[in-house]
């Protein structure tokens, strides 16, 4: 155990549906206060079940969950007051206005109406929904609906924000503005747990990560440590001129894509400078270089496939 305060501590959490289907099997998970934590896994792995249990929408079969040291079995109401949940599915009243939804939510958290109105204005400005405050929520675009759910989850100033695929189905511009917003929020001290299918998102935002598959945690480490596990990475090189013959590149696998482009799979212990030197000595001028796949994506597939 480290010296950090734990925002979330899950011990031996098990969920069995109707005594038959095991969705979670004795999982253990620790999230430090202030962390930006990714919970990844394929569809049906158990991510949403974990979030459902933390938020009280799913009943656990056994195990213990503590939110900032508060056991949910002892004082769930106190624990819930520290959490903000952004679910995967739209779950607000489609006939209410944007402001009404957030003010009501503040009321459920015991925030008086005047304070709730002021905070609603603040969060709507932060999430760039201020000009939609009087709009009936069903008229919002998909991205705006997502931002509305984030605004709603923030109105009581939670210490722990849990987002279940918050950027699913939104365009890249909205996604990037959400990343920026969430990074700022995390920098201001809010602990964030994120589930996502966009692995680039997890790599870009999160410091620690757990991968869940088939109801079990198959990896739980720092993003940096996980990425170091990659044995090799594949890069796509684009050359300035046609490449007639590739030089010998020890410790790599080379695949020519066309006359000017080729893929090189490079072991992690190889230095890229060596590769560039050999290419340069052979008269090959590299115009650009990029990762073929997202690095985390490669690892994720490796881990999930090895668990099968």
């Amino acid at each position, binding site marked *: 155990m480290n010296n950090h305060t734990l925002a979330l501590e899950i011990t031996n959490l098990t969920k069995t*549906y109707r005594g038959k289907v095991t969705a979670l099997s004795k999982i253990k998970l620790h999230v430090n206060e202030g962390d930006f934590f990714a919970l990844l896994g394929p569809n049906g792995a158990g991510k949403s079940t974990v979030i*459902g249990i933390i*938020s*009280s*929408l*799913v*009943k656990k079969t056994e195990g213990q969950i503590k939110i900032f040291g508060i056991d949910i079995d002892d004082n*769930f*109401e*106190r624990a*819930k*007051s520290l*959490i903000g*949940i952004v*679910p995967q*599915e*739209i*779950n*607000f*009243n*489609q*006939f209410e206005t944007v402001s*009404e*939804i957030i*003010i*009501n*939510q*503040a*009321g*459920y*958290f*015991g*925030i*008086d*109406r005047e304070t709730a109105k002021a905070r609603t204005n603040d969060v709507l400005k932060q999430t760039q929904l201020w000009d939609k405050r009087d709009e009936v929520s069903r008229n919002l675009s998909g991205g705006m609906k997502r931002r509305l759910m984030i605004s*709603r989850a923030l109105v009581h100033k939670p210490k722990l924000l849990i987002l279940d695929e918050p950027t699913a189905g939104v365009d890249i511009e909205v996604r990037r503005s959400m990343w920026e917003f969430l990074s700022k929020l995390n920098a201001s001290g809010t602990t964030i747990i994120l589930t996502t299918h966009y692995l680039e998102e997890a790599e870009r935002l999160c410091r620690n990560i757990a991968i869940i598959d088939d109801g079990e945690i198959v990896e739980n480490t720092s993003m940096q440590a996980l990425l170091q596990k990659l044995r090799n990475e594949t890069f796509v090189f684009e050359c300035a001129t046609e490449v007639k013959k590739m030089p010998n590149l020890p410790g790599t696998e080379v695949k020519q894509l066309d006359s000017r482009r080729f893929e090189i799979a490079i072991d992690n212990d190889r230095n890229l400078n060596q590769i560039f030197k050999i290419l340069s000595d052979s008269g090959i001028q590299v115009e650009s270089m990029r990762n073929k796949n997202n690095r985390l994506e490669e690892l994720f597939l490796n881990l999930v496939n090895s668990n099968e």
Partner: protein
Amino acid sequence: MSNNNSENSNNHAVIALQAIVRKEVTRFSRIWMQTIIPPAITMGLYFVLFSTLLGSRIGQMAGFDYIQYIAPGIIMMAIITNSYSNVVSSFFGAKFQRHIEEILVSPVPNYVILLGYVSGGICRGVIVGILVTLVALFFTDLTIHSYSVTFIVVILTSALFSICGLINAIFAQKFDDISIVPTFVLTPLTYLGGVFYSIDLLPEVWRQISLFNPVLYMVNAFRYGILGHSDIQVNYALTMICVFTVLLAFISHELLKRGIGLKT
């Protein structure tokens, strides 16, 4: 310290309750053409039929003009059906659209959820009751015999049927499920609950069977509050209403606590 915690907790519960009640009242007020006006029109038609068209032929009942005799029952019928349908449709709608999760993920105690939805049902029941009473005044004179009995019966009855609506919504899984109870249980019980007749007119067997109908107690207690006449002992009727209300409130609180129909 513990006093402060308890004070904060109470304060939180009051604010959360206000939020749920405000949301509920806003909901049915927003769609007043569906929720407030139709019962006034339907009950107004009863008054038209039983005052000018049929009432004069039926004559008096228990010493009152027929229209005067049935007016409290019709008002009570409106209160019962509207408090029930308000909660059943609102709570099931919240389940169906999943925005009930807004409350479930919040630190709102179960008794506050229960009180909030029931208060919403009472508000609609009382508003519709007042509206139907105003319509009734176009057809007959009504004076209140006992303000306290009238008030208690209206509040308890609308609370009781709001709780029934909540229980129905908790178990309902599709829209059909929220219309089965009103159609096959609530409507027959209401029509056979002494709204249109005195049970003293029934043969002894049917009179005894009628005593098992809970609506009979509410209609007669309310009639006592308005006209000062009841087919059954008012104290007994009030006791029965209280017992049913407390019992069903306890059951619905247990259902919420266990997350039946709400949590997997």
